[in-house]
């Protein structure tokens, strides 16, 4: 071997000697040329790109930024709010006119409940208003611990965690688990706080058609095939389904039993947002799981706010300790925010007491929902959207008048003329440019237990008259 190599070397040297001089010179020049080409070009590029200080100053002088915010026209529909003077209870004073409230999400009428107020007051006398700190730094009060254990007990889960803001609850919970590279399957009708949670998680988002389990299964199958192609990646890619119990945007219910089946078939975890269904559905107000008789342990995480049925402030997540405990260090809205004012936690505890003592309240609510749902059918020009047992329904235009703005205008006249006749309704508000799938314009009709049959008759009558006047 060694001698063979040596031989080649010798041959090369010999060839070098034997080659004609012009050949050697030519090759030498060529090599030099290549070297020059290699180095000169990049050098020159740099030279031309560099700006002089003067040029930089000119550029800085030249730059004109856009205004911080674009101007808002004076007649922007959402600029001027309706003003509520006094408490936002069953009889509500809007723009100086007393109306029956068909717009606040105060489903169980606990907002104006004397027992709740008393408990809040007692708490105020003991703790003051604010907590002056996040949960970690002396912002955990005994009432927070009590509320958490009461919520866990109420929902029959291992653990619950409370947030100080309803919106922040699911929006913090999703990114606590789902990270970059994970996959989330979401219903198209998911509410805005879910959308923000998804965005904050930076995961891979797949939307399925609203309540369409076939579409979801199609996506899950696709993903399964994908996983088989790349099993190493699949082993670390977490998968979640995020759905709402009762959808705030469509007032219908998620098919939870089918979702649970899909969960075990495709090994995906389910996060369930129950702000509209907690304290509403089920015999004891436990929400969609109780409504369908689904084992609550099959749902990985349930979140809800305490601002609708509970009529306090804040939100909570509940589920198995294995899942929930993680948020105590990873839920951004939990760790980095001041904790819930203790008086609001006390109010929520008392609300839970009332809900536990009298489950009849939920049957009552359901009856009223059914009644209103039935009565609102068949208004000419308007279409009622939602389940018969949903307490927050939508009235949409049967056919659009052409543009979203004019539809909104039309619905607004209906709302205004109802206000005129002392029935408080409101338009469902959305950020039109920000919503992933913008729901059609609608009037919200909220049913609460405080509404009497008479109130409901009156409201339905008003809506009918206003609609026929506006939609001639």
């Amino acid at each position, binding site marked *: 071997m060694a001698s063979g190599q040596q031989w080649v070397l010798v041959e090369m040297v010999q060839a070098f000697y034997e080659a004609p001089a012009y050949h050697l010179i030519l090759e030498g020049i060529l090599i030099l040329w290549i070297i020059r080409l290699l180095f000169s070009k990049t050098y020159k590029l740099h030279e031309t790109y560099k700006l002089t200080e003067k040029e930089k100053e000119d550029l800085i002088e030249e730059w004109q930024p856009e205004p911080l915010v674009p101007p808002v026209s004076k007649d922007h529909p959402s600029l001027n709010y309706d003003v509520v003077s006094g408490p936002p209870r069953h009889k509500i004073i809007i723009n100086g006119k007393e109306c029956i409230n068909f717009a606040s999400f105060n489903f169980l009428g606990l907002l104006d409940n004397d027992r709740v107020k008393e408990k809040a007051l007692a708490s105020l006398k003991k703790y003051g208003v604010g907590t002056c700190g996040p949960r970690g730094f002396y912002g955990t009060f005994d009432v927070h611990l009590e509320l958490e254990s009461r919520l866990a007990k109420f929902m029959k889960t291992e653990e619950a965690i409370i947030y100080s803001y309803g919106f922040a609850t699911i929006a913090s919970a999703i990114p606590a688990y789902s990270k970059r590279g994970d996959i989330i399957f979401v219903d198209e009708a998911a509410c805005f706080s879910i959308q923000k949670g998804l965005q*904050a998680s930076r995961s891979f988002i797949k939307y399925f058609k609203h309540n369409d389990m076939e579409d979801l299964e199609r996506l899950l199958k696709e993903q399964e095939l994908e996983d088989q192609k790349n099993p190493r990646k699949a082993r670390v890619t977490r998968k979640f389904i995020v759905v709402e119990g009762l959808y705030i945007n469509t007032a219908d219910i998620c098919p939870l039993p089918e979702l649970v089946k899909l969960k075990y078939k495709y090994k995906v975890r389910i996060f369930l947002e129950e702000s509209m269904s907690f304290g509403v559905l089920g015999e004891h107000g436990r929400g969609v799981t109780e409504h369908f008789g689904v084992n609550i342990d099959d749902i990985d995480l349930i979140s809800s706010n305490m601002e609708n049925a509970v009529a306090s402030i804040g939100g909570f997540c509940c589920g198995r300790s294995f*899942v929930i405990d993680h948020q105590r260090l990873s839920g951004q809205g939990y760790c980095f925010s001041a904790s819930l004012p203790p008086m609001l936690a006390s109010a929520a505890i008392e609300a839970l007491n009332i809900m536990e003592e009298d489950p009849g309240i939920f049957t009552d609510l359901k009856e009223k929902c059914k009644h209103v749902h039935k009565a609102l059918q068949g208004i000419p020009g308007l279409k009622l959207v939602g389940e018969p047992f949903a307490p927050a329904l939508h009235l949409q235009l049967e056919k659009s008048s052409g543009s979203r703005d004019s539809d909104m205008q039309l619905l607004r006249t209906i709302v205004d003329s109802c206000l005129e006749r002392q029935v408080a309704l409101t338009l469902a508000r959305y950020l039109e440019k920000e919503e992933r799938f913008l729901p059609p314009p609608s009037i919200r009709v909220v049913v609460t237990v405080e509404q009497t049959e008479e109130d409901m008759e009156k409201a339905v009558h008003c809506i009918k008259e206003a609609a026929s006047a506006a939609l001639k």
Partner: protein
Amino acid sequence: MTESPATKPANGDVCQRVKNGLKPERNGLLKSLHRCHERQSKHHCHPEEEEVHAASHHDSLYSRPFVESFEETPMLVAVLTYMGYGILTIFGYLRDFLRHWKIERCHIAREKEEQKDFVPLYQDFENFYTRNLYMRIRDNWNRPICSVPGAKVDLMERASHDYNWTFEYTGRVVRDVINLGSYNYLGFAENFGPCADSAAEVTIKYGVGVASTRQEIGNLDRHEDMEKLVAKFLGVESAMAFGMGFATNSMNIPALTGKGCLILSDELNHASLVLGARLSGSTIRVFKHNNMQSLEKLLREAIVHGQPRTHRPWKKILIVVEGIYSMEGSIVRLPEVIALKKRYRAYLYLDEAHSIGALGPRGRGVVDYFGLDPRDVDVMMGTFTKSFGAAGGYIAGKRELIEYLRSHSHSAVYATSMSPPVVEQIITSMKCIMGEDGTTIGCDRVRQLAENTVYFRKRLREMGFIIYGNEDSPVVPMMLYMPAKIGAFGREMLKRDIGVVVVGFPATPIIESRARFCISAAHTKEMLDRALSVISEVGDLLQLKYSRHRIQPSMARPFDDNMYEDIDD
């Protein structure tokens, strides 16, 4: 009293300069002019020079002394700290190994059987730190209290029989613990007095909930009253309030900037600002903490080069800073930031979560502290949680800004509006600070807080602790460095009936674990003295007096004395 030029280059520089402005009537003018000439002779043009030039008729850029210190970590301490983490990590692996082979009992909650074959919800290494380091000293956090979070607080006693995996409440209450942890700067966390009384009245009348959003049917007259008051308090055209401080940032920054905009963010900005910036979809660039050279460099580069790849000019540039940085105790160099912002036509978002109420002769925050015009700050943001003893946050500024937010803020459209008693607490406490209640209580508290702060910081420094941050910041971080001392300090202090906050990684850089004291106007001199003597005692016990500058008083000493006089006046 020395700065670490290696890590924080701007500090030393500006610190020296602004000390000149201490007695403006005597030498401030002269020196600032002198400095102006000196620096103009260099060919490099700084925007602040122009600012100084314009302002040199009456004063320098800073109207008051700006003394901020970040003493360098002693080398030996740094080495020992790293060793400490090294040992903890080795033991962590060892114990994980033991847990894996079931030799050590594992307390961690388990995934349920049916879901064992799912993709694990947590990566194993994700929780290594929690399991093996945090768990050892977990008793220092989340301590439940059962009283007003005022100057003294009652803690629920808890015990753990399984090394902090679970806690058991003994039912006993540890009474009258001096509270150096709550952000109760002006002492408005009270359960009696005018604020609590009017909040109680409102609770009876309104209840606690609202059950609707601002845009739908949750816009109470009290909300609007409060917003008008906030605008008046801050000296701006208009304001809007939101139910949660964290969400005020994370839900409104996306309304202000979007794709094609640039956000320049201080590296130590709060998580809510970072989240808001991320949600906005804008490009984010981070400048060194409170470092104006770094900020200017980024500004220049951004405008000169435009957006990456496309090189189109940025639509707008938003500088995001905080008033007081809650972990560092530093105060933003606002006069310089404003000068830069004007020079480069950027917009300024100022988060006054900790500084509103707590700084400035009238308690109006960092703008008041520097004697600046609030109209120079484009977006004034702050929280009601801290100085006002309530909850929520606000954004204030020009009328157009607030009108835009009223129609486009995520909060206004989708989140339930603020609870009426909380609103009432804000109104009454703010009126008190403004003196609109006809008393001087608010005014006295603002002054008391400033005095307490200066006194507490001075005493700690004299004892030889390393204290970070600005002389006037009521947030006082005291360096502990070593991981074992985090737990030890918290526990030893509680044993002596003082509640403190200790923080370590990831809230701070890995070797800069610290204790943080929050001074309140409600602290009496006796309480502070008691706290100080206990801190000194524990400091000796744990050898925390790291500072190497106590033996030879530094140059700044006489200035310090002057400053206390100034504030006492």
